[in-house]
């Protein structure tokens, strides 16, 4: 595919690896925030190519993984409502809530349908006018505008039976929370490429200014990631902290203003609960009053019951980058992709799943 192959070129990657090895040998922790980066780093064996003093740490950027049990339980309770059709992305299906999962309630007869896009959910609503159709919306700034657009489309089309359960989240607040906690030293951030496509580079500025942490907005191919790591190392070596864009073929400093406008027309910032990080002020997106009739939480006051965490599971610490998956007592023993206990092992982008698939049980 045009514009992909060059960024997978082995010769270019090898050159970048050499350059990384020539940089001063200062021990650094570099955090890749985005789950798609985590997968790419593992798939292309990038960790093995780096010198020992460059430690890659995975962050809280897998939206499935950071969704709280309380929110999953709500979706499960909604799916159990007679007549209601619950639509969501495939990754959410197998994630265990407190006592069940969407896959399980579907097996018990609930109408849970996997969609690739909110456009498909709108189509289901159009084809089933007598049934409420709820889209369970998870994801960060990349995905939230697509869900905002679905609400704008539903309004334009006059679809009275389309609703959204929004547990959307935004990325900069948890990055601040991680740095503020002091639990882990982060010497550089690989910032999420497609989140930044929407929000641009400015929202990360505080990391460089207030905390002196270099940030590079990175693409997803191996050459992109290696170049971004090298850019972070160069900044560290020179004592500079800036927000740089490596993924320039897609990311503009100002982001996609149209998408941002659509997102904030429909949603407003709200506090949100993150697995492993607790409640982070202003890190969520809830539906504004003007679009309240699309808010599934208001339309269906279901009771999800008490929540419960999975005993022994260290997903929360994995999401904060504090422990690596093999340090969890469940990892690879009772928790595997075939029989997952925690969401980090369920989602294809989860740190535990990537680790297990590509590194095995170390």
């Amino acid at each position, binding site marked *: *595919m045009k514009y992909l192959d060059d960024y997978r070129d082995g010769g270019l990657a090898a050159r970048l690896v050499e350059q990384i090895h020539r940089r001063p040998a200062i021990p650094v922790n570099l955090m890749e925030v985005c789950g798609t980066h985590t997968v790419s780093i593992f798939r292309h064996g990038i960790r093995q190519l780096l010198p020992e003093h460059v430690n890659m740490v995975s962050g809280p950027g897998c939206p499935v993984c950071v969704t709280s049990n309380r929110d999953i339980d709500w979706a499960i309770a909604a799916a159990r409502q007679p007549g209601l059709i619950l639509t969501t992305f495939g990754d959410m299906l197998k994630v265990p809530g407190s006592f069940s999962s969407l896959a399980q309630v579907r097996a018990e007869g609930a109408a849970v349908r996997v969609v690739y896009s909110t456009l498909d959910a709108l189509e289901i609503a159009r084809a089933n006018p007598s049934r409420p159709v709820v889209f369970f919306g998870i*994801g960060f700034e990349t995905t939230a505008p697509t869900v905002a657009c679905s609400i704008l489309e539903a309004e334009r089309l006059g679809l009275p039976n389309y609703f959204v359960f929004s547990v959307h989240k935004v990325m900069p607040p948890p990055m601040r929370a991680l740095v503020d906690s002091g639990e882990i030293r982060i010497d550089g951030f690989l910032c999420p490429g497609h989140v930044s*496509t929407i929000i641009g580079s400015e929202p990360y500025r505080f990391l460089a200014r207030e905390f002196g942490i270099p940030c590079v907005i990175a693409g997803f191919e191996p050459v992109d990631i290696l170049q971004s790591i090298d850019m972070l190392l160069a900044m560290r070596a020179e004592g500079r902290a800036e927000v740089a864009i490596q993924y320039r073929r897609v990311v503009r400093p100002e982001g996609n203003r149209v998408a941002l406008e659509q997102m904030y027309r429909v949603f407003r910032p709200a506090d949100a609960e993150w697995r492993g990080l607790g409640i982070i002020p202003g890190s969520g997106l809830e539906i504004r009053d003007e679009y309240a009739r699309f808010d599934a939480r208001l339309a269906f006051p279901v009771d999800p019951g008490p929540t419960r965490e999975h005993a022994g599971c260290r997903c929360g610490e994995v999401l904060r980058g504090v422990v690596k998956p093999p340090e969890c007592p469940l990892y690879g023993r009772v928790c595997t992709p075939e029989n997952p206990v925690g969401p980090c092992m369920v989602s294809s982008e989860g740190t535990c799943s990537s680790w297990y698939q590509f590194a095995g049980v170390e």
Partner: protein
Amino acid sequence: MCLAVPAKITEIQGNRAKVDMAGVVREASVMMLPGAKVGDYVIIHAGFAIEKLDEEEALRTIELFKQMDSLGAEN
């Protein structure tokens, strides 16, 4: 989840477009990219074109890499 891939717009009608993703033709919304035109390369996420791919920038980056490669080879 934030996976997004390049595709070429082959047709546009209103805010819906047909896009060619490495040979697979799909429908995508261009609501977030009002200026999108047939022939543009765009990045598709969950059925929406989220940004135009800057072809000049893509080529320039690769060109820079290639220069680095030839410099390295001379060492």
